């Protein structure tokens, strides 16, 4: 029985021990595989656990680490710190020879003929891909209940949702099945599940990470982002995947800061960075319907940041209230175009209905789930003759105003914004499933950030009724490093908080059975 304690280490600690040679990637991967296999029946976070592939990659990483150790300190320094560290991928990232369902029945049986750019980058770094993670179908949803493969559960309460759409990515990290995972965020799909499961999740600036080989939802909004249990861990993963890729023409030729690998280890040093930092508190983000416990945790976090030397400035982002309507025009419109490719001819699910039109209708009607159908309908309608100006063009104009709000705040000398991520903690399965608008409200505080293309992240900020609350940090374009430093500073000033050491409570019963296992 592998040591379950290994699954509680930070990725940084794993990396240090792998380099030192007192831990092998194979031991580490075996411990994580054992935990994932044992708990996935309860969590449904994983759609595939690739034991053979993971063990093979771990052995390769061990060989690279051993070779580097023989060649000395310089050779070790050249290895990426992710070498030998387990990661999970949302099941919309292509891995050559493996499935890529995007949580949809329409991609059942599809086999990726190539690696996504970020898969290539992770392999080059020596990271060990443990498998593919559950998600809302085509990343449309905020609960993972829209997966065609059954919902994922929240490690804090197995009767509640983990958020979405990257619910499997968040749950797997919260549960310790992997220290790191990849998600995508089109309107909050990294930040909101990170908040609901008590982990760190970042949506980088639009253009920071290549989307080559990643299933598209809304192309002017989609970004790839890391999950981890600490700021340093997530920053390390972003470092590995970020940067220009000629195969995604929206990926930006911006240098990736090396300092993502050098966030302060010492709490004192990290906290000192807050002095003189100007944080804006946007009043519109304290929306009607926000749970009192969530608001209390956010206000306490802001007070702690102020007490540690940050300057808090009240700001207004006056077009925030228009974000939801704008997003739910732009994103479905882009989705309806992107999802036109699922025609049952070149790949994926195919049903023959007679002539070509009947084939399309039968394939798409039986391949897509209810939320995807709703969005395709909305988007098709918003782009159709006679409605384009009233809906799509109008939404693009309001998008200009939403972006201008952020530009004005950052132009006035604000270094970053602090806000809630989700107005509510994780909710019971089914509670928002029958009313699409109730589900959409889960992302009201995150989707304006996508509309403006900015980086945003969720960091754990305590518990409300025993369930995690996320604090959102939003920065100007390309400020990921500053956001991670801020996140690290918040970790430092709350290092002694009682909730920091709390294990996800929903898995406690499962884990109690492990007592006595050697």
């Amino acid at each position: 029985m592998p040591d379950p304690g290994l699954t509680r280490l930070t990725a940084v600690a794993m990396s240090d021990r792998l380099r030192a040679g007192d831990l092998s990637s194979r031991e580490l991967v075996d411990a994580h595989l054992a935990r994932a296999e044992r708990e996935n029946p309860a969590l449904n976070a994983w759609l595939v656990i690739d034991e053979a592939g993971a063990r093979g990659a771990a052995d390769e990483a061990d060989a690279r680490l051993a070779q580097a150790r023989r060649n000395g300190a310089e050779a070790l320094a050249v290895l990426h710190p992710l070498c030998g560290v387990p990661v999970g991928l949302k099941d919309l990232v292509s891995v050559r020879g493996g499935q890529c369902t995007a949580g949809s029945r329409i991609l059942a049986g599809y086999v990726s003929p190539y690696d996504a750019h970020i898969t290539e980058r992770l392999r080059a770094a020596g990271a060990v891909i443990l498998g593919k993670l559950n998600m809302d179908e085509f990343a449309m949803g905020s609960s993972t209940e829209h997966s065609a493969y059954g919902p994922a559960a929240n490690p804090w309460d197995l009767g509640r949702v983990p958020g979405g759409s990257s619910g499997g990515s968040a749950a797997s990290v919260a549960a310790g099945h992997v220290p790191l995972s990849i998600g995508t965020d089109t309107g909050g799909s990294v930040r909101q599940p990170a908040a609901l499961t008590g982990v760190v999740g970042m949506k980088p600036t639009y253009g920071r990470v290549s989307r080559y080989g990643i299933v598209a939802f809304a192309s002017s909004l989609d970004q790839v982002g890391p999950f981890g249990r600490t700021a340093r861990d997530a920053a390390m993963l972003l470092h590995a995947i970020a940067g220009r890729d000629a195969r995604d023409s929206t990926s930006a030729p911006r240098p990736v800061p090396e300092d993502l690998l050098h966030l302060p280890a010492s709490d004192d040093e990290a906290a000192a960075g807050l002095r003189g930092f100007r944080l804006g508190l946007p009043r519109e983000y304290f929306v009607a319907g926000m749970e009192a416990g969530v608001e209390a945790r956010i206000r306490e976090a802001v007070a702690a940041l102020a007490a540690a030397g940050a300057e808090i400035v009240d700001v207004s982002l006056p077009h925030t209230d228009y974000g939801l309507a704008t997003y739910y025009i732009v994103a479905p419109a882009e989705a309806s175009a992107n999802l036109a490719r699922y025609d049952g001819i070149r790949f994926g699910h195919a049903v023959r209905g007679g002539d070509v039109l009947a084939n399309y209708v039968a394939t798409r009607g039986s391949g897509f789930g209810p939320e995807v159908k709703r969005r395709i309908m909305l988007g098709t309608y918003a782009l159709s003759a006679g409605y384009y100006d009233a809906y799509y063009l109008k939404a693009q104009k309001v998008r200009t105003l939403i972006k201008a709000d952020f530009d004005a705040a950052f132009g006035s000398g604000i270094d970053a914004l602090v806000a809630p991520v989700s107005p509510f903690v994780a909710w019971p399965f089914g509670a928002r499933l029958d009313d699409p608008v109730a589900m959409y409200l889960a992302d009201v505080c995150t989707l304006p950030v996508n509309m403006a293309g900015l980086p945003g992240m969720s960091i754990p900020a305590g518990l409300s009724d025993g369930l995690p609350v996320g604090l959102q940090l939003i920065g100007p374009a390309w400020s990921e490093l500053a956001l991670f430093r801020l996140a690290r500073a918040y970790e430092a000033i709350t290092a002694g908080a009682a909730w920091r050491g709390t294990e996800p409570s929903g898995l406690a019963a499962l884990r109690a059975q492990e007592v006595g296992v050697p």
Partner: protein
Amino acid sequence: MGTLSRGDVEHVAHLARLGLTADELARLEVQLNHILDQYAVLSGLDTDAIPPTAQTIELENILREDVARPSLERAEALANAPERDERNVIVPAILGGD
């Protein structure tokens, strides 16, 4: 802004090539109208003088030399097609005739 009738829902489903059951059409008529109600907030904003934003990064078109590069092998590119022969994806006829 508009309200969707059952006929509108059926028309949009046709445009989207989506097969929907009678139950789905009935549910979508209610749900889509509820979502469209949320859009109404936008009509209160005067945006006549506001330019649209289609994307948020200031990248110009990026061009590359038009040269052939290695790509997928034919067999790999065909492997996922529901109907194929050794060289082609087999598609339904789209032109009439015998």
